[in-house]
């Protein structure tokens, strides 16, 4: 692998700027003549906007403009779109209400913007916003799905009667009914998957700069996918044609899905910049993040699993209500359908599955993809179900899983996915060994003697990543293709620039992507730079989400590298008067195999650009582009086991041990991969123990700051013991599966399974706060 090649834990190239305070995030950027935006947001969950009086505000110092929802609609800025069309079981398209960037008539969640103040400073904009008088007529509101679907519930959108967006099904209901009719045992489970706020540490921000002479916009924004942002802003929101709109996502302080979407604030900043003729900057504060960043999860589910007399699963039926909030966010429709129900087979042979998903509007912040996006919900359901079944059937939970593991690949599940490879026994073996599963009963007994309730919980997850084969997702309703692009530019002196459509916001692409180049050419990574996040520099690309950057993005780079190498070999062969077939690349040199004849890579690059002695007919230069469309999803999988103690007197949970055995296929940089797992585990554990975005019955958010919403702190978490088992992904040449979301997908079930094991009661909702655990222990 070499010290910097594939498989080496190289320290990150990008770190120096971050550890010295030289990162460049959107809010760090200042433009000449810049103005500042402050949004006026609804304090009501549901209300008519009867009027906006900005006369007093306009007289205040430093105020440049007050712009309203009516004006943005009059200027024909498009409504926000949802980019994945889902069809209900009756054949009807999903039912969507209109979502203008600022509400002209009706607000449907607390925090929805109705107007914006543009002023000379952030403080002056904030001051003036206080003086804008909005006349609201409050309407009845509804915040949770079960209330929203009841007859007589407040209605959000005339387009969606009963607040229902869609009623979607997957699988063979007849086959499932037949399996349940013959079942030896049926296990039933009701559960909720708690709503989460993503909370990337950098709040969202945008700077829009309109150049009237060129009729050209530049947008600096906190985006995971700047090209997708430009496409949507151009094609759907009528901001500007794509060649007149440059989108730059510089250093971005975490995303976790929440920065995939194009939000009203970016649209308003662009529109306002043209209106006021000056750059407009908006930087969200944390409460705005809670109110307006797309939330995650929020499912209510009933599921039943059928078993035969040998404890083999024969069928699974699932009914889920998914809370979409007040509007359909960009990819929201796909999350509880194709990213959730298609993973309901878990790691198990389940011959028949049927799932029904009902998408529901409520007067809450829109819900969309958050780390894992649908797959944590599926994994939590299946792994809680397996644990519940083991308890009901009185078998060891690990043994019940083994009885039902898929062991032959490829494996076609009844819910679309074709698993390409995996070894679920191997990862479970590794995790059980790491935690000394066999020794647990003795440890539990000892803890009991010390007055503690000790529990152990297993979670065997599988996810679908490498999102995604364009043709496949297109047939399922996606509005975009999900390939990735790359350009490899070799400079005349032999340094290399990789232009990628992926975007790094913590994942370390500036290091791992260089490692591929170092591996293939034998050049040091210091000679390679990664260019991303600027639509003027980089060819169209799809961005980073769904653990796709290595499996799809890096493969695109590999494809471009292969083209560069092929041309470079021809140049080297010509220079060395050898056959192209005899040229091998070793340690930065192109060698004639079996001889001492060689030419260094920089000399090949120089030859390509001087063009003094190229093979006949060859174009000068050394630069290639590739677009790579994956052939299948990838299927990372693994086993997590959590051991913990519960204090029966306080309900407080303390970790004893948390082990993870993941199969991500080939690892480019194990240090970075482990970092991704740590972070994912923290988010999964956060969901299980601490985090919950709560609304009261009237749609008022109760958790809109870090004072109220419990973010995992260092002393809430254990140190993790990680290991890897490997089956290479056959779907891409590097054998990569992806690692960005696994921790968040697998962890929460392990924690809840462990707590319920410790307390001896199976029904416990997330987050398992001490209060909730104590009440569960002491409930009759």
């Amino acid at each position: 692998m070499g010290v910097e090649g594939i498989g080496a834990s190289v320290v990150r190239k990008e770190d120096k700027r971050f550890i010295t305070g030289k990162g460049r995030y959107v809010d760090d950027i200042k433009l000449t003549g810049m103005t500042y935006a402050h949004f006026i947001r609804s304090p009501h969950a549901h209300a008519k906007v009867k009027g906006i009086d900005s006369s007093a505000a306009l007289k205040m110092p430093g105020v440049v403009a007050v712009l309203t929802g009516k004006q943005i609609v009059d200027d024909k800025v498009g409504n926000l779109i949802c980019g994945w069309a889902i069809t209900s079981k009756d054949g009807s398209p999903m039912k969507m209400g209109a979502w203008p960037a600022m509400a002209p008539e009706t607000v449907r969640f607390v925090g929805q913007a109705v107007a914006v103040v543009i002023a000379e400073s952030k403080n002056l904009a904030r001051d003036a916003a206080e003086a804008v008088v909005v006349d609201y007529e409050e309407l009845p509101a509804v915040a949770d799905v079960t209330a929203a679907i009841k007859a007589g519930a407040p209605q959000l959108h005339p387009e969606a009667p009963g607040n229902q967006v869609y009623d979607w099904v997957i699988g063979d209901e007849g086959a499932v009914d037949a399996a349940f009719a013959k079942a030896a045992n049926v296990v039933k489970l009701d559960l909720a998957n708690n709503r989460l706020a993503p909370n990337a540490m950098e709040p969202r921000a945008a700077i829009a700069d309109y150049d009237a002479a060129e009729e050209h916009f530049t947008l600096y924004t906190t985006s995971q996918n700047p090209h997708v942002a430009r496409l949507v802003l151009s094609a759907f929101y009528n901001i500007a044609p794509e060649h007149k709109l440059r989108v730059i996502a510089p250093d971005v302080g975490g995303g976790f899905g929440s920065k995939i979407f194009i939000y009203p604030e970016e649209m308003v900043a662009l529109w306002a910049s043209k209106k006021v003729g000056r750059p407009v900057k908006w930087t969200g504060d944390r409460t705005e993040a809670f109110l307006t960043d797309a939330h995650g999860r929020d499912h209510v589910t009933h599921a039943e699993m059928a078993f035969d007399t040998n404890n083999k699963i024969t069928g699974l039926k699932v009914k889920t209500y998914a809370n979409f909030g007040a509007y359909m966010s960009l990819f929201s429709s796909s999350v509880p359908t194709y990213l959730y129900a298609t993973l309901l087979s878990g790691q198990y042979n389940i011959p028949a599955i049927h799932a029904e998903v009902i998408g529901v509007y409520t007067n809450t912040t829109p819900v969309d993809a958050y780390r894992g996006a649908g797959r944590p919900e599926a994994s939590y359901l299946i792994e809680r179900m397996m644990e519940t079944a083991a308890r009901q059937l009185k078998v060891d939970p690990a043994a019940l899983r083994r009885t039902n593991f898929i062991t032959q690949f490829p494996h076609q599940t009844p819910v679309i996915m074709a698993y390409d490879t995996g070894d679920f026994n191997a990862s479970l073996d590794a995790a059980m060994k790491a935690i000394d599963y066999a020794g647990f009963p003795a440890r539990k007994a000892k803890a009991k003697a010390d007055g503690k309730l000790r529990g152990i919980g297993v979670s065997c997850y599988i996810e679908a990543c490498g999102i995604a084969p364009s043709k496949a997702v297109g047939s399922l309703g996606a509005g975009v293709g999900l390939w990735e692009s790359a350009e490899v530019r070799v400079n005349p002196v032999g340094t290399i620039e990789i232009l990628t459509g992926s975007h790094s916001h913590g994942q370390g692409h500036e290091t791992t992507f260089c490692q591929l180049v170092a591996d293939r050419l034998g050049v040091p990574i210091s000679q390679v730079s990664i260019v991303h996040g600027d639509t003027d520099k980089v060819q169209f690309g799809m961005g980073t989400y769904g653990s796709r950057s290595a499996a799809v993005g890096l493969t695109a780079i590999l494809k471009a590298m292969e083209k560069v190498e092929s041309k470079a070999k021809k140049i080297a062969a010509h220079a060395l008067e050898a056959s192209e077939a005899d040229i091998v690349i070793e340690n930065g040199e192109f060698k004639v195999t079996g001889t001492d004849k060689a030419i260094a890579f920089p000399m090949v690059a120089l030859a390509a650009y001087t063009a003094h002695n190229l093979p006949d007919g060859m174009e000068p230069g050394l630069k290639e582009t590739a677009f790579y469309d994956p052939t299948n999803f990838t299927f990372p999988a693994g086993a997590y086991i959590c051991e913990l103690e519960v204090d029966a007197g306080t309900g407080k949970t303390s970790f004893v041990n948390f082990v993870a055995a993941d199969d991500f296929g080939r690892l480019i940089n194990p240090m970075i991969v482990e970092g991704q797992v740590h972070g994912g585990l923290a988010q999964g554990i956060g969901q299980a123990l601490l985090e919950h975005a709560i609304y009261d019955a009237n749609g008022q958010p109760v958790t809109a700051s870090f004072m109220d919403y419990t973010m995992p702190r260092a002393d809430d978490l254990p140190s993790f013991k990680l290991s890897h088992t490997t089956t290479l992904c056959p779907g891409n040449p590097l054998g990569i599966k992806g690692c960005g979301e696994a921790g968040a997908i697998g962890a929460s079930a392990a924690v809840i399974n462990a707590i319920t094991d410790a307390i001896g009661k199976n029904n416990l909702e997330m987050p398992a706060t001490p209060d909730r655990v104590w009440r569960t222990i002491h409930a009759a």
Partner: protein
Amino acid sequence: MSTVKLTVNGKAVAVDVEDRTLLVHLLRDHLNLTGTHVGCDTSQCGACVVHIDGRAVKSCTMLAGQADGADVTTIEGIAKGDELHPMQAAFRDNHGLQCGYCTPGMIMSAIDIVHRYGGQLDEATVRHELEGNICRCTGYHNIVKAVLDAAGRMKVAQAAE
């Protein structure tokens, strides 16, 4: 408006600011020291931690005027030229950062922790002491490792001085 006179990273500065200006905004907006970040507005996340007269302080919690006469050190001021502070080096070597947004505050808090404990740190203490710094990327695993590693490095560096 008031004039605030203070020393920032060893340099004396005088800045005219609105009285309501927070120290973090003086640093970011007036001195262009954008390494100090704002992550929460409620003094929870610690992305804004700087050193004031040698002690870690959340600069979003303090009016600029309160720092009049103080000696302020930010993330930009802890390396000696090209030589990283041992805490910075330990964060890099232990992969103690991902997106980098919480990192300056983490490093500034962590230096203070090591100073206060004289290098006598264990994992539980580090985790407890980091209560005022939130990271969403790393799960803290490698941050804790980095702080313990740096505690050793700082002890060695101190002994050498």
